[in-house]
């Protein structure tokens, strides 16, 4: 994979990776940092001479690992490091997330779903990944993913009606 190809992948998947992170941490800045760190790590992996067969599942796996690591450490993974390296994080005025009127409801409902349920619903219906692709990212079978999606949808319907 060349640098140009990698940047094309960034343009294509940056939004999805950011959204994936956002619905895991419910924080714009942290989600943005996770998205950035995901692509930096992926490039680091490539620059070490290791091949990436399928970039999309790989990016999701990296993002998931970063979020899990952070939840274990309970501290920001990369922002301090990036500051040291001279990266200037955007100030509050730059935050231009287009939050739909229903986004507050989405956030409220998503935060009430458990981690696994929210994860598969976002991947399937927001990022529009196929069950097979989700299975590859999560390291489970496609059947397990289908069952999780079905259960998560049931929970979601209950929450939407409550």
């Amino acid at each position, binding site marked *: 994979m060349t640098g140009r190809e*990698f940047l094309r992948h960034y343009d294509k998947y940056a939004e999805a990776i950011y*959204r994936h992170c956002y619905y895991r941490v419910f924080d714009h800045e942290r989600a943005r940092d996770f998205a950035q760190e995901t692509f930096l790590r992926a490039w680091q992996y490539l620059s*070490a001479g290791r091949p990436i067969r399928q970039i999309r599942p790989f990016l999701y796996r990296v993002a998931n690992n970063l979020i899990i690591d952070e939840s274990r450490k309970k501290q920001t993974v990369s922002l301090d490091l990036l500051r040291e390296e001279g990266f200037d994080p955007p100030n509050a005025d730059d935050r231009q997330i287009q939050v739909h009127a229903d986004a507050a409801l989405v956030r409220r409902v998503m935060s009430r779903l458990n981690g696994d349920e929210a994860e598969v619903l976002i991947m399937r219906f927001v990022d529009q990944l196929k069950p097979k692709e989700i299975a590859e990212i999560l390291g489970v079978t496609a059947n397990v993913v289908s069952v999780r999606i079905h259960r998560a949808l049931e929970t979601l319907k209950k929450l939407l009606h409550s």
Partner: protein
Amino acid sequence: MIPSPHNFFSAARSVSLSTNDRERIRRRLTEFMASHPLPTSAPWWRTLRWAVGGACAIILMVTAGLAAAANGSIPGDTLYPIKVGLTEPLRGAVALTPSAKAETSVELLHHRLTEAETVVERQGALSAAQEDMEERVNAAAAAVKRQVDGLERRQLSSAAKQVKDHISDCLQKHQQSLKQKVKEHPTQRQAAERLLKNVDEQEKLLLERQDDRPKNEPAAVKSDSAQTSSGRSNDDSGNKD
């Protein structure tokens, strides 16, 4: 109003990175990529590893293919040396116990006889190929005898009996097939009769020890063997007549 899951996910999709954020991350990524370039080529050991792995896979596939193709070959065929020089010795090497070795030797005798029958079918009249084949049959029978003798020396009489039963079945099958050739194919008659005679001799050679069993051998086993042997010899003499 209660939103449907569809509307819910549409709303969820509206969360996105701002253009500024996306551009900023892209710039940061470009800088990082410039400071961490991709390696110009794969490390030599990785290339070598793939090359060695690929070569091994190809060799394995070719060997397996040749071995499978050589299975039905007969003397004179191009692949026959692979069968007798590679496939069969390998099969013999896998047999570890004396009885397994003896069973394998019976299998080889069966192969030689099958090949000899094929030679008779293809060439009809007596030929040099048949003489060569008979030598191979004799060698295979001698190997079987050595294995059976070995079993008996080790006092593995039940294993020896099992192998002899196997020999008996094998020879009987070939005798029947050859008798049919003698009857139904006049052109093959001479060659088939000669091979049949050879099989009868091998039968005597290999199964004669049934009569030389030690005195303490159980009577039932002895009488069974005697029945098998005598039954067949009667049958043989009847057919020959």
